[in-house]
């Protein structure tokens, strides 16, 4: 049986950017996982959370701990508008971030690259209805 917790994320909510990642960081810290694994989870979670805030119409982050299997799953599910060109989006340095986002230092185009680098498994599905990013981390 998995332990599950859900968090809402809102479009362009820059004031609260990182709050969900901070909460998830504390939850993972309490599991006493390896320090490097914790840091990887934090980087991936933050980048994905920021992507939702910058690029989506909002959505939900799902934390799911499969304790017996030693796997943590993080799901980032939004309600649109989808990623028009996934290949471009996965290209380091490429970004469709708004001017507002860039003023805050976002939009370097490194988010997905960072996520892929630190996750043990990565799955991305997208359409106009929304995007679902699923990440797996081996925590034991």
């Amino acid at each position, binding site marked *: 049986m998995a332990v599950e917790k859900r968090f809402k994320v809102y479009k362009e909510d820059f004031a609260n950017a990182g709050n969900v990642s901070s909460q998830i960081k504390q939850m993972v810290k309490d599991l006493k996982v390896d320090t490097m694994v914790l840091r990887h989870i934090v980087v991936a979670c933050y980048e994905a959370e920021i992507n939702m805030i910058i690029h989506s119409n909002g959505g939900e982050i799902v934390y799911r701990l499969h304790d017996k299997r030693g796997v943590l799953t993080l799901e980032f599910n939004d309600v649109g508008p989808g990623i028009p060109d996934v290949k471009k989006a996965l290209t380091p340095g490429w970004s469709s971030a708004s001017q507002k986002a860039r003023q*805050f230092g976002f939009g370097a185009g490194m988010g997905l*690259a*960072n996520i892929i680098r630190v996750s043990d498994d990565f799955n991305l599905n997208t359409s106009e209805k929304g995007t679902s990013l699923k990440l797996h981390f081996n925590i034991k």
Partner: protein
Amino acid sequence: MTVEELNEELHFEIFANKDSLKKEISTCFVSDLLSFVMGYGKPGSIWVTVQAHMNVIAVAVLKEFSLIIVTSDVKLDKTFIDKALKENIPLMKTTLTSYEVCKRLVNLGI
């Protein structure tokens, strides 16, 4: 070197809780792009930047940085300073550019 010891050398304007002055400094990272900082910053770092908004504090907390130095005389508003104090991240402010700050840090062995 601790934040306190560094402050004795740099004499920048500083905003910090007493206990956060004891934070050890491991290295330095210079960037104004948050994804680069998230991807490559190391725990215990000094973060040198011109960015001075709440997301900077969030990143510094998540990456376990020891200090943020905001350069080029960028204004720090009260909410930013209060957030840094609440999250126990020391802040320094200077009129020097990021390049000039880095030169000083290198000369101090960081």
